[in-house]
């Protein structure tokens, strides 16, 4: 479990991170969203023990980042937004170096390296020099490096930057797999639609302050309290609007440009089911009835003002 308590970092007058507090459980994948200079990297670097907090602390499975940094380091895998690759080193040698540093016995290292190469789909590049790998492959090699010691917490700082769509999709699958393996994953990114696809939690940070934190749906609802339900009907639409408006929890109903009825529902899923039942009962011929997908970008734009430290 990762527990962050009142974590704060100041540089003279500048507050880079302001009293951040949240908790993550094994299997959680947190999308850490913020503009450049919002404090994402500073937070990640403090949790990875690379920066000393000005006040507050964080603990991972009971190991405190200030009191027991060595214990914390054994539990984390940190992937910065740069690669930090060595020249003239082959992929397996790069991983062997870190496996050695993490104290993995020399007899176990080959199998560990093979496993992480397989997990990151780099088995065929085992003997390739790291500088000869594509950017996507280097990114995956860095992720493989983070995994050699089987960490409980993965800190991925802008992992998708500079990757092509296919590489991003592969990375997304890999992160989902890591979440399924019970690891806590923190992913900072600007590419919001992608985060919505695989994160179960989201944190929005601006000027060092955590503006929102929680489950993706929870955060979205905190910003946009009503659900948007789209209904597509065969036949007359005006009657549908009138019927919907009469239902419990519906604050607004209108016909959009595409010809579907958009219903703002402030109630629960129960109310949503009831709405559908009522519409069908009134004889409206509905061929599509769906809740609008969560849109992190809208949430982000509503919560933040684009200010930077």
């Amino acid at each position: 479990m990762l527990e962050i308590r009142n974590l704060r970092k100041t540089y003279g007058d500048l507050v880079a991170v302001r009293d951040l507090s949240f908790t993550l459980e094994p299997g959680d994948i947190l999308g850490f969203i913020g503009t450049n200079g919002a404090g994402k990297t500073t937070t990640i670097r403090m949790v990875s023990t690379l920066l000393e907090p000005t006040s507050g602390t964080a603990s991972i499975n009971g190991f405190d980042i200030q009191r027991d940094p060595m214990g914390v380091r054994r539990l984390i895998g940190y992937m910065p937004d740069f690669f930090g690759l060595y020249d003239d080193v082959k992929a397996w040698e790069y991983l062997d170096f870190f496996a050695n540093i993490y104290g993995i016995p020399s007899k176990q290292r080959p199998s560990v390296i093979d496993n992480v190469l397989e997990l990151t789909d780099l088995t065929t590049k085992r003997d390739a020099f790291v500088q000869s790998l594509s950017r996507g492959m280097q990114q995956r090699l860095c992720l493989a490096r983070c995994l050699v010691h089987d960490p409980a917490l993965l800190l991925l700082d802008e992992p998708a930057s500079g990757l092509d769509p296919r590489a991003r999709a592969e990375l997304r699958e890999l992160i989902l797999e890591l979440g399924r393996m019970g690891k806590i994953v923190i992913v900072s990114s600007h590419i919001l639609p992608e985060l919505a696809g695989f994160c179960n939690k989201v944190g929005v940070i601006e000027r060092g302050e955590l503006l929102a934190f929680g489950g993706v749906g929870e955060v979205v609802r905190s910003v946009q309290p009503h659900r948007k339900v789209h209904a597509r009907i065969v036949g007359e639409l005006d009657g549908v609007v009138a019927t919907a408006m009469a239902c419990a929890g519906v604050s607004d109903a209108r016909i959009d440009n595409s010809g579907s009825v958009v219903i703002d529902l402030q109630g629960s899923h129960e109310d949503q089911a009831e709405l559908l039942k009522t519409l069908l009962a009134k004889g409206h011929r509905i061929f599509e009835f769906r809740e609008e997908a969560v849109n992190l970008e809208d949430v982000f734009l509503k919560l933040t003002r684009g200010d930077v430290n």
Partner: protein
Amino acid sequence: MSAIGNWMTEQRRAFFSNAVSQRDFRTQMRGKKAVLLWLFYLGVFFFVVGFGYQSQVEVHSGNLVELQSSLNSFYQSIIAALGGFIVMATPALTALSVVGEKQRQSLDLVACSPVSFRYLLLGKMIGSFRYVWMLLVLSLPFTAVCVSLGGATWQNVLVSYALLAAHGLVLMSIGILISSVSQTATTAILYSYFCTLAYSVLTFALAADASPLFSFGPRLQDPFEAPVSVALSPFLAASAASTHTTILDYAVPNWILAVGVCLLLADLFLAGAGSALGAYGAKETLRFRTRLLVNAVLVGSFSAAIYAVGSRVGSRSSLTNESNFCFYIAFLCLSPLLANLFAWNWNAPKRFQYDGDFRLRQIFRGTPSGGLPFAILLILVGNFSAMGVGLLVGIPLTATSMGILVFCAGYATLWWGLTQLTSCYAADLKFARVIPFFVVLLCELAVVIAVAMTSDRRTNPLYTFSFISGPVIADHDGFLKYGVAAAVVGIVLRLCSRTPRKERNIETVA
């Protein structure tokens, strides 16, 4: 037992299965680059040796006695050339070791792994040390020729190589230290070469000054007594191999003492590098400061012992009769670094932020409040070691000895006051450290000008600054007076600076 076991495991990992050295070894030995480099080295060495042979041996080929003597000199010149190669090569090997990691941004990846900076630095050191041994091993055919022709014995060769390897260790640790504190490759290379050059010149001057019996050629194979400083120069390893120091009626070979000194120095510089990379309260800082104290004891002891042995063998040295004078000179030479102990800045990392003026508990944590207590502790330890050993070897304790102690403490207080003042107003830590250096330099310059301008220097107003460097330039009797004056000025400067107070953080989010 488990603590000892853990320590043993840690040492085994650091020295025998160090990941950093293994990785460096793989990359060093890869490709044609290494082979070409060694071939180039052999070519240059062959040229140097050939030139030396031409000038020293061939001209005496008619006379056997002269030939033997010149073979001896030829051997010494080979070892001196090897020393030169090591001095030239080590900064190139180590200057980029840490700064390269910083620039490649791979240092963070190691820093957030469960190994200490000492592990990383030791790995770098071991990796570079292999190169030094390659330099030595590749030169073996040339020295073997000298042995077979009668210019040296295998014992000479082995001892000289051990000394050269030890000097290589010191020079490498200097390079690693510079690399750790540097931010760019260019500054790392420049400062590494500068410091290596300074070390080489200083140790050569010490060695040359130490004994009048010290000379090239005929005496090489006759063991003779000389201060240990003769073995501290990489250029004179061959000549120093046959010298010894008499300690409690035992003739201890100087090369053993010198190797010990070199190991301690290398350890000190490596600990310094670790401390430079470490964070607030890091073990590396504790290790570095402990090493500094141990080395202060050694410098103090050696300063007395060198004087004692030097006077017994008729040394050219005529510095002073005080046992702690050498420690005093060493302290003055290192004093520009004092500002690093005291300077603070709110924008700097936590360990360099103001946390008080004088706190004994912070001595080993590396924070500004522990700076002055640590400097005074260092001075006490060094001076008392020198005085104690001086008494043991028959150098009487005088009022000047105590004066030197007081002056050192006063001088440190002056630097402290000045650094406190500049820290209050400097925009960043670098300025807070550099400004005191220039202020002291200007004051020193004023004293020099005063001495140069007037016949009676005491009448010149510029001479007022003599409390800073007076005892060196003027008389040796004023240590106590000057020390007290420097301490008073330091305290006044501290009182003049505004009391540091952490500024309130401006609320950045409405």
